[in-house]
Structure formats: C-alpha cells, structure tokens
C-alpha cells in the first residue's frame, strides 16, 4: 500500500461509515423535508484518480455500494447507482475536459482545477447517481413525480455536503 492509494482507502471507509451510521438514519417525514436523502459516498467515486480504468472504478463502486446496501437492507440500489455513476464518470470526464487537460495521476478536486469546474463535475455525477438510485428505488414509471422530487431534494443536500467536505477537509489527494 503506497501513499497514493491510502487517501482513497480512507475515503472508502470514512464515507461508508458516515453514510451507514449517520446519513441513513436521517429520516424526515414532514413536508418538503421528506424528499431529502443526503448521500456523501458518491464523492469516493468522483475523487478516484483520473487514470483509473472505468472497469476498476466500477468494481470499487460496486463494492462500496454493496457494503452500504448490506447495512441499510436495500440490496442492489446503492450498488446499482454507484456502478452507474462510475461508468458515466469516464464520459463526463471526457466531456468536461478543461483547456489544459488532466493530470491523470491525480484525483479531481477543487484545488487542482478551478472550484467552479469541480463543483459542476460533482453536481452532474451526483444528479446521475441520485436519479438512478431513485429509479431503482421506485422501479415503476408511475412514480415519476416522486423520483424527480426525491432526486432534486437529495441532490441539494448531497451537494451541500460535498461542498462542506471540500472546504473543511481540504483534501490534497
């Protein structure tokens, strides 16, 4: 284990614990708050090194999603959404490539590229993740309205969490 992979391992475990121990237990049943389901763990996938092959990031995402699913008795939902976002990450990276190109050995973060670029990147991937997650959760087109409302509400709180994480922990790698 070298110093390159250590931050990722730590993020894997950290996000897993935060998600399972804290975020999964936040449950509002009143008004607009019922649509807020904060999720932090997609940030692990977002922040994998840019050079990581898509297949490998999908396997990592699958593992992380499965772990979260296991402790929240929602088999397949988090794993499916995580694999989906890992697969999409490659295309989004190509699509949003900044003028200077990437430093492929590093992970994308707010410091290395512009803050604006990074948060746009996060917002797109989080939106894809949440949309796919709630599609899997509701699983029928008749719930389209619930899927959209949950996606928008959760996207808001998850995005705030991601911003919070970036500024508080200020990850270099």
């Amino acid at each position, binding site marked *: 284990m070298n110093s390159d992979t250590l931050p990722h391992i730590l993020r894997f475990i950290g996000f897993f614990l935060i998600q399972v121990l804290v975020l999964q237990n936040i449950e509002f049943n009143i008004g607009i708050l019922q649509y807020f389901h904060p999720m932090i763990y997609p940030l692990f996938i977002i922040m994998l090194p840019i050079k990581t092959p*898509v297949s490998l990031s999908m*396997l990592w995402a699958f593992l992380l999603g499965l772990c979260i*699913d296991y402790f929240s008795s929602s*088999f*397949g939902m988090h*794993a499916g959404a995580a*694999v*989906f976002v890992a697969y999409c990450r490659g295309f989004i990276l190509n699509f949003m490539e900044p003028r200077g190109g990437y430093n492929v050995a590093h992970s994308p973060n707010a410091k290395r590229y512009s803050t604006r670029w990074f948060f746009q990147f996060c917002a797109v991937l989080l939106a894809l993740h949440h949309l796919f997650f709630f599609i899997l959760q509701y*699983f029928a087109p008749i719930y389209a309205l619930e899927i959209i409302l949950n996606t928008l509400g959760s996207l808001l709180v998850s995005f705030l969490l991601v911003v919070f994480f970036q500024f508080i922990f200020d990850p270099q790698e």
Partner: protein
Amino acid sequence: MRNLILYLLRYGSFVLFLLLEGICISLLVNYNESQREIFVNSSGNLNGKVNSFTHRVGEIYTAHREVDSLSNVIRELRTQNLYLVSLIEEAQLDTLILDTFHTFIPARVIQNSIQKSNNFITINKGEKDGVKPRMGVVADRGVVGVVRDVSANYATVMSVLHRQSRTSAKIKGTGYFGNLKWQGINPNVVNLEDIPKHVNVQVGDTIHTSGYSRHFPSGIDIGKVKEVELSQGSNVYTIEVSLFTDMRDLEVVYVMEDHQEVELDSLLNVGADE
C-alpha cells in the same frame, strides 16, 4: 476467438457495466419486496402481451384453413336449410287451417309484375297440387288475388292490381261492404267503392274480406283506410285503401282451397233451376 478478445478489450467496460448492473437489479428484485412485486407484475404483463401477439401471428397462419372449413360448413347448412324450408312449407299445408272449410296450399311466386295496368302473378303450384281456377290467393297478411288459369305444375293469379279485379270487402266493425278496384297507378293503393255516405268511416279503419264472394272467406285482412273522399252530389264515398301486402315483394303465397265449393255450387244450381 481473437475477435472476441479484441471486442472484450475494446468494450470490456461496457460489458462489465451491464454485468454489474445485472447483478444489482437481480439483487434488487430478489431481496426487496416492493421492487419484486413491480417486477413480477410487469413481467407478467409483458409475458401476456408477447403471448397474445404470438397467438395472433399464429391465427393468421391458420385463418385460411379455418375459412375453408367454415365455408364448407356454410354450404352444408344452406343445403339443410333449403330442405327444412321445404319441409316447413309442406307442414303448413296441414297446420295452417283457417277454418274447417278452407285449406292453404303454399306456393312460391316465380313471376310477378306491378307496372302494367293488368297484372298477373305466376306461382309454382298447379293442378297436381290441387290448385283450381277461381281459388283465392293470400299472402302472410292480406289478399293477393284470384287464380285464373291452371296448368299441371303452375298457375297464373289475377292480382288485385288488375283493373278487372273486384274483391268484395267490408269495413271492420260494420256490415257495409263494397268492391275493391284498382285505379292502375299506385301499386300500394286500391279504391273501395259503394260505401254509402251515412257510414262513419275513419282514416285508419281496417278493411277485410266480406265473404260474399266465393273466392275468399270472411275476415281476411286487406288494408287500412288511407283517405276518405265524398264528391259533390254523390251518395257514396271514394275510399283509398293502402294494402297490407307489399305487392312488389311477394315470395310465398297461399292458395285457399274451398272444401264446400261442390256443395255450394249444387245448392246455387238448385236455386237457379227453380
């Protein structure tokens, strides 16, 4: 094989993506109650749709054979139907007895006319079947005419739409009677003559045979009063009667055989001799 490996190398991530998502969805469907129900229901629906579609495709292939067998069945049924119709006609010969003095001989109209001023009808029953001249002919409802000439198998009927046809008729409910006469224009309308002007005749009154002529017994419906007219200085009405029978649409008619004919003839002859 080499191509397969190349393919996997190029599109491996997509294949892996599909594989992982497949695992996720199978987990989702197998371990989560609500998703399982939705999955089972919708796959049941899909199954039903696919099945009914394949069923319909199969139907198209078997349709030709079915049409063939059905047309065979129809042909057989038509033959049977013709036979049964003839049986029914024979049976009516026995059952359709209006009174004890008359029997009905069913006959099919094989020639008919209405446009001329003197119209005749030809029927497919003749001397062999007991049809004789001067017998009355009726349809299901209403008078048709009187037999004039008879051959072995056919007979001609002088229709009521003949200018020399005179049928004795009564207004239902009264004793007053007159003669029916066709004016030679409208095949639905005949005129009733000789009803005196003090009789109360209303439009819609039923006209039936009087029984005074030898051709028809009393009480066979003819038609309804359509118009009542009293010309100035006349003592009798001119009454237009619309016929119950549509003379343009005759198929089966009945010849009325009178069993009392001989007796009545001899009685009248005795009266004439004295």
